[in-house]
């Protein structure tokens, strides 16, 4: 652990430096591959939507050693001819999912199951979803998504910088896209709880990005008044300086989510806890990646287009500094030669 902390110190002073910004093409490439895969998976397989989105009924009977065949027999007796999915959940539950039924049919199925498994009808957990319900939640989730993106963009533009807001939002969209893509690819069930998970990722993914950008802002406050670092170099330093922080916050955020996932999937089988935590787990991983590998390079690119920053890059180059983007071998460019104005810097090497 202390080795890791020591690394934090070296990263902070720029002695050890990973060239996140210079290698941005590499990261963009990785993300592009994932995004293309996501688009492919979404268009070929689509998302595996739960009954909440299609409308239908779900009945869960809790009884020792239930059998799928008994459940099927009960549904047939109830005279429901729509395609029913019957599955065992854990070793004492059997779940029956049907298409949309009339209320009277729901009661019949419930009674038939109760009779078959010799349990009281009121102990059967049921969920009945109207056919238009899914449309309603999807619509609301989309409103929530767009509302969030707009409000946060405005807020970040005011609290940080407009271009930081744009980069942060690009990173968030990237996260949601890849997370949804992974869902399509693996074929995880999408339920309303999953949607909550997706929406929560937005806030989370931004937390790390805000930490990095706040440092960038600090490092670049009066960057044009000197000729020591290009904007990209300053961003790179900020990412290196905050990487321990980002890693730690991500680990700490992931631990409780992993606990919910473990308990939810392990003990309860399926349900709100599992769906929510799985979406969060995947989203958090993607979010951590984008706050380091996507948001800062995009920001650097956006700002480097500004004439003032280009002039700065020229001045830094003239002084013999190596701009981070020019060469992919410049992994430790900032390290060796780039003048650093860290106080208390002990000469190393």
């Amino acid at each position: 652990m202390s080795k890791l902390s020591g690394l934090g110190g070296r990263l902070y002073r720029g002695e050890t430096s990973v060239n996140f910004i210079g290698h941005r093409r590499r990261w963009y490439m990785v993300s592009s591959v994932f995004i293309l895969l996501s688009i492919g998976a979404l268009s070929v397989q689509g998302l595996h939507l739960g009954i909440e989105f299609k409308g239908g009924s779900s009945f869960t009977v809790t009884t020792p050693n239930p059998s799928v065949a008994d459940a099927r027999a009960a549904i047939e007796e109830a005279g429901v001819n729509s395609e029913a999915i019957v599955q065992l959940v854990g070793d004492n539950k059997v779940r029956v999912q049907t298409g949309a039924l009339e209320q009277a049919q729901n009661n019949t199925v419930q009674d038939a199951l109760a009779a078959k498994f010799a349990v009281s009808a009121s102990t059967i957990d049921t969920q009945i979803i109207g056919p238009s319900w899914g449309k309603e939640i999807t619509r609301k989730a989309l409103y929530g998504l767009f509302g969030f993106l707009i409000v946060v963009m405005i807020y970040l533009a005011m609290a940080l910088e407009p271009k930081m807001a744009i980069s942060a939002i690009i990173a968030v969209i990237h996260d949601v896209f890849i997370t949804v893509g992974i869902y399509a690819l693996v074929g995880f069930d999408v339920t309303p709880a999953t949607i909550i998970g997706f929406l929560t990722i937005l806030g989370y993914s931004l937390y790390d990005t805000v930490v990095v950008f706040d440092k960038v802002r600090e490092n670049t406050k009066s960057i044009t008044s000197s000729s020591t670092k290009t904007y990209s170099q300053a961003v790179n330093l900020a990412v290196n300086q905050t990487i321990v922080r980002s890693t730690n916050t991500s680990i700490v955020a992931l631990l409780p989510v992993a606990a919910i996932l473990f308990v939810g999937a392990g003990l309860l089988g399926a349900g709100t806890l599992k769906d929510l935590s799985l979406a969060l787990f995947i989203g958090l991983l993607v979010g951590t990646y984008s706050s380091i590998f996507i948001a800062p390079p995009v920001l650097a690119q956006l700002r480097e287009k500004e004439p003032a920053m280009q002039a700065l890059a020229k001045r830094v180059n003239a002084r013999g500094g190596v701009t981070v983007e020019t060469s992919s071998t410049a992994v430790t460019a900032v390290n060796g030669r780039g003048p650093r104005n860290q106080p208390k810097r002990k000469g190393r090497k």
Partner: protein
Amino acid sequence: MSTTNKPIKTTSRPGRTLAILGLILVAMVSLVFIQGSTSVRLGLDLRGGTSVTLQPRIAPGDEGKVTSEAIDQAVSIIRQRVNSLGVAESEVAAQGSGTNRQIVISVPGDTGRRVVDLVGQTAELRFRQVLASASGVPAAADAAATPAAGVSADVNAKFAALDCTKPENLQGTGADAPTDTLVACDRAGTTKYILAPAEVLGRQISKASAGLDAQAGSNWFVSLTFNGEGTAAFGALTSRVTSLPEPTNQVAIVLDGLVVSSPRITEAIPSGNAQITGSFTQLEAQDLANVLKYGALPLAFDRGEVQQVSPTLGADQLNAGLLAGGLGLLLVVIFTLLYYRALGFVTVGSLAIAGLMLYVLFLLMGEWIGFTLTLAGIAGAIVAIGVTADSFIVYFERVRDEMREGRSLRTAAETGWVRARRTILVADFVSMIAAVLLYVFSVGGVRGFAFTLGLTTIIDLIIIFWFTKPALVLISRSKFFNSGHPLSGFSPKSLGLSVAKEA
């Protein structure tokens, strides 16, 4: 780097801040005891029960009908129906905003099916001629001997047996078809009726309002206007019954299978404008006018989602939620202690106080605003452990950065705070935006999640400002931390300083 080396004023008084926070906590806990709210109100998914979410059904061209008033009206009508079940702690509430609202009905216990059947009905208002009436108690056997004209013996027997003093007969089933000859009680349970098939329907009324007799100054009445179809039907009905003997000259207004009012028709009314007079109070007149205007429910509803959770599953989910919370907390504590050593205890202390505060707020909000904790709410609280611990990490790392720049822990605790504070405020504000938008744009469980997430974000801010920061400042004065003890989390080695010195 734009590092300012201005001397930092060390006027902060950590002891006082901590004492204030302590007082606030004591006050909150005492409030809990004063209010006697000793257990958190659990949602139906944690203790078993039925919840039904109703969505207004909007026919094309009818978009304007879904007004806030209509939804409120529907909520109060459904509430009456649900209350008739006599289950304690049933709740009926509108969720969402504006016209895009839903009605959520939650009833604990295993009355499931009855609730589901009861709430969504949009029984229609009907006008039926009264064929016979009697006081609400079951008639003695001989009194039922002579059926009124046009009434079968079967119906007459039912009428005789009907006991309007029993609550189950006053529930309003709304199961009557317009063509039935109906046996019904009035809403108060004092009178019972045999009613002819419906001749005028609620949708044939175009206007209804309550009014006051200007001359008498005290008699409230209800005026009605029928549409074209209604005018003809009501005209025919009134002209036929007006000359008939009691009680067949009365027309009953029936809603949900219960007689709301049964005015005597004193003259034929061919104009389509009628007045119902009687000894109404203002409230009664307005209620009757509302019923006439809206029928049963002002809107038709679809059952969006019905969820029935047995108490067993509820208990399982509660246990799983608590287990996941405990496990998550334990993992975070282990990680912070391993990484931050003794400094990790500040995190553990902060999380403990945040947890206490959250629990107390759950208790108090259950009392104040009827907050109920759902499974999604528990998940929100667990996820929030991470968010809360994140701000400590941002602060601690910042302090360590300051020390790497050569500051002492005492100074770094203050200078690092000034910078970390900004980051934490911005990041928490973003979390808050997410929580608020999730809350606004969602129904049911999701709202519980968003609510706890928002609540914990606020608690996070309180804790980091009033506990973590003063606590760190306080311990930064101690020798153990200030001297950079290997276990303090601020040792030169863990900061990566010694490496530089040795080289």
